[in-house]
């Protein structure tokens, strides 16, 4: 019924679901690192960007598809570890504001490095382009990537969930996100837990890079920058303190922006960012601790 009002077709709905799924993955990537480090990684989008460049170069060199994907993972994971080592680790004891500004700086740094090395014009990552073609399901055209993105995202979320729930390091990561100090005094090794979170978060960034390059094969230095800003808003909107609300927030904002972007006529859809962020601000004013979290934090802490 609502779909009728918005005049949404199935194609748009599928694309919105896919965007929501990809944003949910980014939200998990950001949320995992926040959990153990209390650090909002503004530079998360640049990890995705690096992965996208890896895919673009692999297509340019005519590497087989699997090799490109492998390169993408290798680059993103290596960059994640370097970021943790050079930036996150020295900043661990700083205030959240300092850490946020620092990752803001890192984001710009990486973007500028990409501009310097690869130029402003961008490269094409074409090896996975066939996924952009539609399939017909009961008379409706749906792009393959929409289905692939949703399936891959669900698989990734399940995998992360299993890792957190069933493995020792996963248990330790959950404990560290609740009370790092106590976890350490029980013998939980900080570097291992943080390293684990950074690696999983990096792997998710690589997956996101693959999904996004299918939809947007032109890779430029600001690739995924706008997505990251939107996802960050979604994550804070959902509630950054816990992974599930953060993921829901990421999905919700991706789905909403996909839906609105597809449903609104062009003259209005250009104001999509305004509508989205106005909604985000409104929700934050009503629920500063997030849409999907229970209860309210106490007043000012003494």
């Amino acid at each position, binding site marked *: 019924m609502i779909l009728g009002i918005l005049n949404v077709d199935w194609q748009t709905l599928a694309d919105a679901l896919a965007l929501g799924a990809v944003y949910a993955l980014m939200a998990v990537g950001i949320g995992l690192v926040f959990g153990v480090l209390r650090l909002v990684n503004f530079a998360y989008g640049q990890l995705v960007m690096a992965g996208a460049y890896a895919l673009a170069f692999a297509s340019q060199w005519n590497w087989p598809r699997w090799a490109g994907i492998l390169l993408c993972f290798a680059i993103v994971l290596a960059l994640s570890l370097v970021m943790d080592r050079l930036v996150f680790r020295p900043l661990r004891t700083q205030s959240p504001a300092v850490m946020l500004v620092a990752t803001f700086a890192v984001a710009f740094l990486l973007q500028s490095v990409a501009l310097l090395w690869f130029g402003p014009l961008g490269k094409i990552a074409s090896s996975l382009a066939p996924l952009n073609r539609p399939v017909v399901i009961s008379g409706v055209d749906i792009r393959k990537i929409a289905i692939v993105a949703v399936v891959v995202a669900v698989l990734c979320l399940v995998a992360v969930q299993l890792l957190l729930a069933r493995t*020792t390091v996963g248990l330790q990561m959950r404990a560290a996100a609740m*009370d790092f100090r*106590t976890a350490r005094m*029980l*013998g939980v090794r*900080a570097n291992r837990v943080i390293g684990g979170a950074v690696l999983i978060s990096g792997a998710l960034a690589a997956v996101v890079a693959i999904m996004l390059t299918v939809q947007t094969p032109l890779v430029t230095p600001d690739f995924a920058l706008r997505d990251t800003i939107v996802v960050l808003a979604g994550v804070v909107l959902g509630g950054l303190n816990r992974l599930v609300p953060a993921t829901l927030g990421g999905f919700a904002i991706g789905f909403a922006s996909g839906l609105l972007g597809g449903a609104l006529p062009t003259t209005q859809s250009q104001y999509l960012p305004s509508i989205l962020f106005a909604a985000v601000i409104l929700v934050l004013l009503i629920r500063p601790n997030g849409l999907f979290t229970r209860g309210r934090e106490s007043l000012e802490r003494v």
Partner: protein
Amino acid sequence: MTVLVVENLEVRYGAVRAVRGLSLTVEPGEIVGLIGPNGAGKSSTLHAIMGAAPVAAGDVRLAGASLVGRKPEDVARSGIALVPEGRRIFGELSVEENLRLGLAGRRSQAGADDAVERAYELFPIVRDFRRRTAGALSGGQQQQLAIARALVAEPDVLLLDEPSLGLAPRIVDVVFDALAAIRESGLAVLLVEQRAQRTVALADRCHVLSNGELRLTLDRDDAADTEKLVAAYFS
């Protein structure tokens, strides 16, 4: 055969000298009490031993090896387990998961299942509720879980920070009986408490701390001497 040695320990937070020149030892099979009013420096001592508070001077040794400057996780993995103040249970995790977190402090994962089993035997209630969310347990049950969680690491030294805080007397009995049993198994126990009388009665000896300094040491016979205890607190 002294396991834990604290020597001329000095803990400072900025300008505040929380602990001043404290020395004590704990032997295996012994409970040493540390009592005194709030702010006397008891918790700071435990945190300094764990590597979680800044040691300005002095030394902490476990079986002869200095622990000063080590990270908390390394201290835990070298054989000291802490039952922190306020229990610090991970409320959203299950009881069993809380217990499994304690395994992180083991030197070797071999025999972990046996250690968990022994902890269950000591605190049957923890076994009964192992599938529940830890946050749903009562304060006394959480305290038992916190001690069990420390024990599964099979430490040489057990540190307890006010385990009776906020518990009904009936439950305090359970906790203190468990401590006596733990002593029998040969562990060295350092017990920080505010409820003086019971601690003095249980411990092999008890140090009274005030303003970061060791004021006097009481032995078990002093437990009945209320005047001496009152004097230790109110003067």
